């Protein structure tokens, strides 16, 4: 079960994220609650103070105004998200807007039939019954079919000219639009798997196995294994060359804080990796290194790699298994990470293990 995102803060906040709008307004007006880094530097002896500010004494901190829940952000003034940054709804509405309508309308600009690609409601109902109500038909399915064809809206003549194979083909191509191969390089599709330029490489791994004296053939012996992997940098390039995905990439961290009232100290809120202490510290260290006048003047940003691996049993009755290495980016929303249709997970490698048969052949 996928974790559910938190509820939106309020209808007003969902429409216009208060932080982003307030931040943009503050940048233009004089009402910016700008706190210089000198007198707000965190004290290492005081954990509360340390967590309350960005962990750098070199950087001024830009505080956004509080929303109705008392939540606000602290940005490093030197690295504020650019103006064309995404309408950041990371905690107002974490789910990306559904893109189904957009994709459909791109495919069929003259799209006026709500049952597209079916021609009419009757054929859509039959198609829906066939595809969406289970592969194995049951009495319940039979009952629902009878209900469809006996309903007042059902017109048998509507089915006469329906080209089922063509519609199924169209449905299949719709699915391909939602799963573009460039974002899911390893699809179950055999042809996609074989794409040479997909960035995947066959490597040969050789390790030396020192067989002990009591073996039939003692001494070192090479064990050779294949290794199927991608370059990690190519995964980063692929992700960031996509304009849509790049827009939702958070390069600039912030500290998310909550302050219920003026009388009490504000409290840090755990959330995304790009608002974590580790990310902020890495980001600030990077910006400090850039203060050197001889260094590169390009914006220097962290790309947070999150690995994940799990051995996967492929079949129910055999022992075929894979050991994939997955890559997520911590610069993207965690709620998007758990949205399968967002295609944010990349496969980086398939680990190999030592085959027992190698030992069985040359054992005593």
């Amino acid at each position, binding site marked *: 079960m996928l974790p559910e995102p938190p509820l939106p803060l309020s209808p007003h906040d969902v429409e216009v994220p208060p932080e982003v709008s307030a931040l943009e307004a503050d940048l233009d007006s004089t009402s910016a609650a700008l706190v210089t880094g000198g007198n707000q530097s965190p004290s290492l002896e005081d954990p509360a103070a340390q967590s309350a500010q960005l962990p750098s004494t070199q950087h001024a901190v830009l505080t956004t105004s509080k929303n109705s829940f008392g939540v606000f952000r602290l940005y490093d003034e030197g690295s504020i998200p650019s103006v064309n940054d995404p309408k950041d709804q990371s905690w107002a509405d974490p789910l990306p807007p559904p893109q189904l309508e957009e994709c459909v309308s791109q495919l069929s600009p003259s799209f006026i039939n709500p049952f597209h690609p079916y021609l009419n409601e009757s054929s859509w109902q039959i198609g829906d019954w066939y595809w969406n109500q289970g592969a194995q038909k049951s009495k319940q399915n039979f009952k629902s079919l009878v209900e469809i064809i006996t309903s007042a809206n059902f017109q048998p003549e509507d089915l006469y000219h329906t080209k089922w194979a063509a519609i199924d083909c169209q449905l299949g191509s719709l699915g391909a639009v939602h799963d573009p191969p460039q974002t899911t390089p390893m699809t179950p599709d055999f042809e996609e798997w074989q794409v040479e330029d997909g960035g995947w490489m066959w490597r040969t*791994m050789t390790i030396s196995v020192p067989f002990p004296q009591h073996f039939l053939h003692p001494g070192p012996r090479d064990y050779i294994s294949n*290794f199927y992997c991608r370059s990690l*940098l190519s995964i980063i390039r692929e992700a*960031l060359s996509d304009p849509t995905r790049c827009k939702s990439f958070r390069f600039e961290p912030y500290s998310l804080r909550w302050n219920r009232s003026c009388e009490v100290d504000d409290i840090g809120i755990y959330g995304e990796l790009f608002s974590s202490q580790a990310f902020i510290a890495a980001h600030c260290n990077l910006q400090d290194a850039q203060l050197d006048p001889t260094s590169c003047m390009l914006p220097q940003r962290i790309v947070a790699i999150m690995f994940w691996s799990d051995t996967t049993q492929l079949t129910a009755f055999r022992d075929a298994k894979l050991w994939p290495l997955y890559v997520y980016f*911590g610069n993207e929303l965690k709620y998007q990470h758990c949205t399968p249709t967002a295609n944010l997970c990349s496969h980086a490698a398939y680990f190999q293990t030592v085959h027992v048969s190698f030992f069985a052949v040359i054992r005593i």
Partner: protein
Amino acid sequence: MEHAGGDKLPGDPLFTHCHRELFHAQWKDLLDNEFIHAYKHGMVFVCGDNIKRRLFPQIFTYSADYPEKCVHTISLSLPTEVWL
């Protein structure tokens, strides 16, 4: 090697050694020189928003279940500057 016919060889030091060596070799291939260079000096890239940035890939997390975690913690001994 009386366990050789089985799927696993628990406790066999030679098998553990091979498993670790192969795992190391594969990670060494993943964290290749190109990656290490980008890790230390950044990678200049024009992103999809047409902004040129110097990107520093850094590894923040590695999630695995318990058996794999044992493998990683026992057998990973990469240079410390690579791991946060």
